[in-house]
């Protein structure tokens, strides 16, 4: 637009003044005004979608963070426990004991029902028997007395107290009847049912399709953690070494040009391709264990490397040549110049790039699909460093994907809850990256 004024030569005789706005200037001002409005509209659309996304996530996901529990006092009778241990499916016999205790507790509280213990058990999670058995196995001395348990309520009872399940919705449902909900109301008044913060969701393990109420993201969070350790341990040193060599030592020739082009291309390769590569190299050739965070981490390392190399080279480049020249001038070797002067000055930029690369890797699902980290996997918490790297595990985004696929609507709620946790991690990492940059960045 700047050269537009040159074409409009004022007509001879007309008075031109900077105080009166001529039509052409008015037009240019209007165009500028319109452009500003387009910009504001674009930002508003972006903000609208962000708000819609956040509202959807928060409104769907926060429900996963509370959980309904049923408080029950159960007598631990040695003979009953011994009898239950004789069966193949011991936990189902423990469940029967829980059912009897529930019937007793309800009649004690003055709640009348004609339901059989088996039917009443539909209000509790299938994990109740397992909780009971685990307590008995861990505390053999407690047998003979009694213990107060807090069992998880079934996903539909939980959904009812959260407003997700209604009586109409249960008409054709075979997992719970509307009559159960009347009992739940009475139990809540009697203090048998309570709703509390769901720590198990944050620290627990995945559960099977029939027990969404028992599922937690904790074990897959550990899987993600071990994967990130692997990514950090491999991608950071390899990436920095490669970029220092390319930037400071490598001669400029066709070969290094080729490498540079390839690194830039690699950064744009879809992540699923790295998954196929990981499957072929790490599992089929190197025979590393399937579904292991080590393999996941190595695959994600391949994906993160180009990002780290590119950002490291950019921050090395931004260190002015005068620093190197001064160091070389006082007799430092090239390596001393790089390691004593250039690298420390470039470090904030390198760290920022690394953190952003890690955040990318943390949210990645596609490569994990191919190396067997999606499914019913994150059910055994790792019991040490080696098992953390090598035992089958999932990762947070893979776990969310898996939950979103499952049939029970309660899993859908968990998936949104998982998204909240994942977003918190990503936000924290990005904020750390921004703070690092703010604090240490130097302008030359």
């Amino acid at each position, binding site marked *: 637009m700047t050269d537009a004024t040159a074409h409009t030569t004022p007509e001879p005789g007309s008075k031109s003044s900077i105080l009166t706005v001529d039509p052409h200037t008015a037009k240019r001002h209007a165009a500028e005004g319109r452009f500003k409005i387009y910009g504001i509209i674009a930002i508003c659309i972006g903000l609208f979608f962000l708000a819609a996304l956040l509202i959807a996530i928060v409104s769907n996901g926060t429900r996963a963070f509370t959980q309904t529990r049923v408080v029950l006092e159960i007598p631990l009778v040695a003979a009953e426990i011994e009898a239950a241990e004789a069966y193949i499916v011991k936990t189902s016999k423990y469940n029967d004991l829980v059912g009897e205790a529930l019937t007793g507790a309800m009649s004690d509280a003055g709640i009348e029902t004609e339901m059989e213990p088996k039917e009443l058990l539909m209000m509790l999670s299938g994990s109740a028997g397992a909780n009971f058995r685990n307590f008995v196995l861990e505390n053999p001395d407690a047998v003979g007395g009694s213990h107060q348990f807090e069992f998880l309520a079934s996903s539909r009872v939980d959904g009812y107290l959260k407003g997700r399940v209604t009586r109409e919705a249960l008409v054709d449902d075979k997992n719970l009847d509307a009559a159960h909900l009347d009992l739940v109301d009475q139990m809540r008044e009697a203090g048998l049912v309570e709703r509390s913060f769901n720590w198990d969701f944050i620290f627990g393990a995945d559960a*099977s399709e029939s027990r969404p109420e028992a599922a937690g993201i904790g074990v897959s969070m550990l899987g993600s953690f071990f994967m990130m350790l692997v990514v950090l341990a491999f991608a950071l040193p*390899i990436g920095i070494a490669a970029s220092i060599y390319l930037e400071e030592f490598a001669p400029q020739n066709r070969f290094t040009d080729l490498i540079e082009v390839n690194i830039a291309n690699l950064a744009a390769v879809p992540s699923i391709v790295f998954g196929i590569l990981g499957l072929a190299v790490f599992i089929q050739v190197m025979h590393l*264990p399937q579904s292991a965070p080590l393999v996941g981490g190595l695959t994600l390392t391949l994906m993160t490397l180009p990002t780290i190399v590119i950002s490291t080279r950019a921050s090395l480049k931004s260190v002015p040549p005068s620093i190197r020249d001064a160091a070389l001038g006082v007799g430092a070797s090239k390596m001393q110049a790089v390691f004593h002067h250039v690298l420390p000055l470039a470090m904030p930029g390198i760290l920022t790039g690394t953190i952003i690369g890690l955040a990318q890797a943390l949210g990645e699902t596609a490569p994990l699909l191919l190396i067997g980290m999606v499914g019913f996997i994150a059910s055994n918490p790792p019991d040490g460093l080696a098992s953390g790297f090598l035992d089958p595990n999932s990762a947070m985004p893979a776990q969310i994907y898996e939950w979103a696929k499952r049939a029970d609507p309660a899993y859908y709620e968990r998936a949104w809850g998982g998204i909240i946790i994942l977003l918190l991690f990503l936000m924290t990492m990005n904020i750390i990256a921004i703070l690092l940059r703010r604090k240490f960045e130097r302008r030359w």
Partner: protein
Amino acid sequence: MSLAKLTASALAITAVASAASARDNVQVAGSSTVLPYASIVAELFGENTDFPTPVVESGGSSSGLARFCEGVGENTIDVANASRAIRDGEIEECAANGVTDIIQVRIGYDGIVFASQKDGPAYTAFVPSDWYLALAAEMPMDGEMVTNPNTTWADVNADLPTEEILAFIPGTKHGTREVFEEKVLLQGCEDTGAMAAMEEMGMDEDSIEEACMNVRDDGASVDIDGDYTETLARVDANANGIGVFGLAFYENNTDVLKVATMGGVAPSTESIASGEYPVSRPLYFYVKAAHIGVIPGLKEYAQFFMADEIAGPDGPLAQYGLVADPELAATQAMIEAEETMQ
């Protein structure tokens, strides 16, 4: 320098890997239809035995069996879940890779149901011929094959609502598709007399079968390659749409879906067990016999899976939607004897 680090890290990886060679958990992969059942069993297995909880991955029957047939050894899976029987080609592939002893275990039966929005149009009763007439790409008419002229369900059957045909059926990678083609489309093809008409036209058996199962591609039928949750989302967004689901999935979502009868029979575990409901199929898992005794807990897992308390009519699998196999005892004896396929 970077080369030295690369070599060092590669060495470190190999060292770690060889130290971790002894796998102590059972690894399962395969059909996404079987996954819910397998995950329920795996969870109970972990709770009730001293073995760690098995790892169950999904991905489809074909990909599971392909991984199963990769060979024998700790870095291959022990069990493949499948919503169809293993094919001869897959048995050959297995044998070529040294997997010769395979135990076939039939878990039970699964029903395939046709469901639409709860408050949507009254799709309440179908017969297989409705589906053939609605979805066939071409059908015989006056001695020649013509493009399917039907656009609404009322065109197909006057008792059905006047709604545009829109069906969400499983994609070809799903085992469910095979059952849908055989028990619904092929059956409908026969019932409507289209099969006889094609025979009169002089077509051979293979091309008749192909013509019967060939689904129209003008948008009235949509292949869903993902899971049932994707089908549900599509039905949710299209009031006139009908989806094909597994019985267990429907039973978990009765608040939003209504199911239609097929041939006058409503789908339920009872009507499927008795054979009245026509669209059902057996579910299987395959055990690598060479891994029994090598991978701890493998045989125990198979035995536990098929125990009366688990796979029987009162067990947790039936509670979730599986139709128990009446011949459970024979299967249990077969696992006990480690009887392999011939």
